[in-house]
C-alpha cells in the first residue's frame, strides 16, 4: 500500500479521538454593492446576499464533512464593516441593517455573522459614532450578529476617545443581556486582520475581493496527544514534533478550504492556524501547556511554554500552506477552555498573567468575566493596556471582557453552550480614571529602537 498503516491511523485517530476539526469556515461577503438610499431596499439587498451565499455555504460544507470525515463545526459569514455601508443613511440604518443580517443568518442556518463594526483607530466618522452608539441595542436585540471595533494600530496609534466610550458601552451591553453575555459577541482590536475567520471579530476587510472563503482549523486535542506521547524529550525535539503535527493539520485544512471554495465558485482566502480550544475536556490549550510540564496554566514558565508552542504551530503551518493568515495566534478564551477555567478557579491564573501571554503569542484577553461593579474607566484602561501590547509589538490583540452584573470576583458564572462557564476574575482596585479621561489619541510608536 502507498500509505503505511500508521500513517492512515494517525489521520483517523485525529478525527475520531482527538477532536481534530475544522473549527470554522467563514465566507467573507462584500456588501458595498448592496447600498441603496432607500433603507428597505438596502436591507432587502443585504438579506438576499447573505441568505443566498449562507445557504450554499452550509450545503457545500456538509458535503465535505461527509467526504473527509472531518467535522466542520461552524459555518459563518463575515461582511464589509457595517459602518462603511451606512455612511449615507439615516440614524436608524444601523439597527435596520443589523436586523437584516440577523434574520438572514437565522434563515440560512449560519450560527454567527460578523462585521457589524468600524475601524476608528484614528478617528470616527458620523456613521462610525452611530454604529458605536447602536451596539447595546444591536447586541441585546439580535441573536447572531457579532460586532467589532478596531480602535488602535501600529501605524495610527490608539484612539483613546473611542476607548473611553467602550467602558460605558460594555457595561450597558452587559446590563441588557443575561449574565452580560451580549459582551461575548463583541471584540475590540488593535491591528485587526481583514481576513480573520473567527468570531466574534471576523469582518470582510476593504482590501478583500467580492467573496473570500477563509478557514479556521483547530487541533488542541491533536497537539496535546503528541505532547503526551513525548513526555521525556527536550524542548527542541518537542518543537519539532509539534511542527510536524501542525503541518499535517494545516494541509488538511487547506485541502478542505480550497475544495469548498471551488465548489462554491468563490476565491479561497486564508487558513487561520490558531489553536482554538473548546469547552470539551482534552481540547484545551491550557491542557497542552500543562502536558508540556507546567503544573497549572499561569504558573511561571507558562509564557515560555506558550511561546514555544505557537511558534512551532506557526512554523509547521507556514510550511504547509502559502495562505496562512487571519489571526494565527493562540486563543486562550478563559470560559471556553476547561483548563484555563480550572487554572482561574485554583488561583494559578490572573488577568495580569493573561496580559503577559499576549505579549508573546496570544491574541488577546478573551472571554474573561470581570466583576459587574468594575468602573467603566477601569474597563477602558484594561482595553488600553491590552491594545498597547498590540500597537507596540505590531501584532493583533483583542479584548473580549464580560462584566457580569451582580457578580463579584471568584463567583461562578455560566454563559451557556460553547461560550462555557467561568469564575469572575479579580481586577486591580486602584483607579486609572484620570489617565483614561484625558482622551485624545496615543501617537503611533517608533518602530526602530526595538528594546
Amino acid at each position: 500500500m502507498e500509505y503505511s498503516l500508521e500513517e492512515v491511523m494517525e489521520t483517523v485517530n485525529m478525527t475520531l479521538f482527538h477532536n481534530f476539526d475544522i473549527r470554522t469556515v467563514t465566507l467573507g461577503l462584500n456588501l458595498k454593492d448592496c447600498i441603496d438610499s432607500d433603507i428597505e431596499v438596502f436591507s432587502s439587498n443585504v438579506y438576499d446576499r447573505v441568505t443566498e451565499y449562507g445557504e450554499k455555504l452550509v450545503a457545500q460544507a456538509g458535503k465535505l464533512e461527509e467526504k473527509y470525515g472531518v467535522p466542520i463545526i461552524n459555518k459563518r459569514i463575515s461582511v464589509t464593516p457595517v459602518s462603511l455601508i451606512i455612511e449615507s443613511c439615516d440614524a436608524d440604518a444601523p439597527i435596520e441593517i443589523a436586523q437584516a443580517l440577523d434574520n438572514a443568518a437565522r434563515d440560512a442556518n449560519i450560527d454567527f455573522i460578523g462585521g457589524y463594526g468600524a475601524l476608528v483607530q484614528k478617528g470616527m466618522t458620523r456613521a462610525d459614532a452611530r454604529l458605536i452608539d447602536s451596539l447595546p441595542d444591536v447586541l441585546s436585540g439580535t441573536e447572531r450578529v457579532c460586532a467589532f471595533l478596531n480602535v488602535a494600530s501600529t501605524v495610527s496609534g490608539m484612539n483613546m476617545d473611542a476607548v473611553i466610550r467602550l467602558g460605558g458601552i460594555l457595561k450597558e451591553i452587559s446590563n441588557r443581556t443575561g449574565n452580560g453575555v451580549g459582551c461575548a459577541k463583541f471584540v475590540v482590536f488593535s491591528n485587526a486582520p481583514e481576513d480573520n475567520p473567527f468570531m466574534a471579530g471576523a469582518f470582510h476587510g476593504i482590501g478583500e475581493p467580492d467573496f473570500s472563503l477563509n478557514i479556521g482549523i483547530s487541533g488542541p486535542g491533536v497537539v496535546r496527544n503528541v505532547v503526551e506521547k513525548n513526555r521525556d524529550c527536550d524542548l527542541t525535539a518537542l518543537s519539532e514534533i509539534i511542527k510536524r503535527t501542525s503541518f499535517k493539520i494545516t494541509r488538511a485544512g487547506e485541502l478542505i478550504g480550497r475544495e469548498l471554495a471551488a465548489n462554491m465558485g468563490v476565491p479561497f482566502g486564508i487558513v487561520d492556524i490558531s489553536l482554538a480550544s473548546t469547552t470539551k475536556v482534552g481540547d484545551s490549550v491550557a491542557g497542552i501547556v500543562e502536558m508540556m510540564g507546567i503544573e497549572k496554566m499561569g504558573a511561571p514558565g507558562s509564557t515560555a511554554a506558550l511561546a514555544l508552542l505557537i511558534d512551532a504551530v506557526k512554523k509547521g503551518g507556514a510550511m504547509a500552506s502559502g495562505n496562512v493568515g487571519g489571526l494565527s495566534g493562540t486563543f486562550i478564551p478563559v470560559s471556553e477552555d476547561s483548563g484555563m477555567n480550572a487554572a482561574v478557579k485554583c488561583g494559578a491564573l490572573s488577568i495580569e498573567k493573561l496580559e503577559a501571554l499576549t505579549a508573546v503569542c496570544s491574541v488577546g484577553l478573551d472571554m474573561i468575566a470581570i466583576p459587574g461593579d468594575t468602573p467603566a474607566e477601569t474597563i477602558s484602561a484594561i482595553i488600553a493596556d491590552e491594545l498597547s501590547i498590540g500597537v507596540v509589538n505590531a501584532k493583533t490583540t483583542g479584548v473580549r471582557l464580560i462584566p457580569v452584573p451582580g457578580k463579584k470576583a471568584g463567583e461562578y458564572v455560566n454563559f451557556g453552550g460553547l461560550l462555557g462557564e467561568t469564575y469572575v476574575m479579580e481586577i486591580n482596585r486602584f483607579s486609572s480614571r484620570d489617565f483614561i479621561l484625558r482622551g485624545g489619541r496615543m501617537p503611533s510608536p517608533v518602530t526602530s529602537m526595538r528594546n
Partner: protein
Amino acid sequence: MTKYLVFITVIGKDRKGIIARISNAIFKHNINIEDLDQKVMEGYFVMTMLVDMSDSPMTIAELKKELSVIENEMGLKIQVQHENIFQTMHKV
C-alpha cells in the same frame, strides 16, 4: 476512468468475520478493493481498506450509513474518508 479512492478504517476488538462482512457489504455496491492492511495496534485490531468507488452509484455518506450497521452490531469504530486527505497529510 478516474478512480474515486476511499479509505475504510476499522478499529475494534478482534473477532471473526469483520473483513468478510465489510467486503460483502461493499461488493454488493460494486465497490472494488484496491488494497488492504491490518494489524493489532495498542491492543486493538485495526484494518485499513483502500477502495475504489468510481463504478458504484453510492456516495461516501451512503456507504458510511450502510457500514454503521456493521459498526453497531460488531462493536467497532468505522471511519470512511476520501483518500485525498491522507495524500495531503502524508505525501509532500
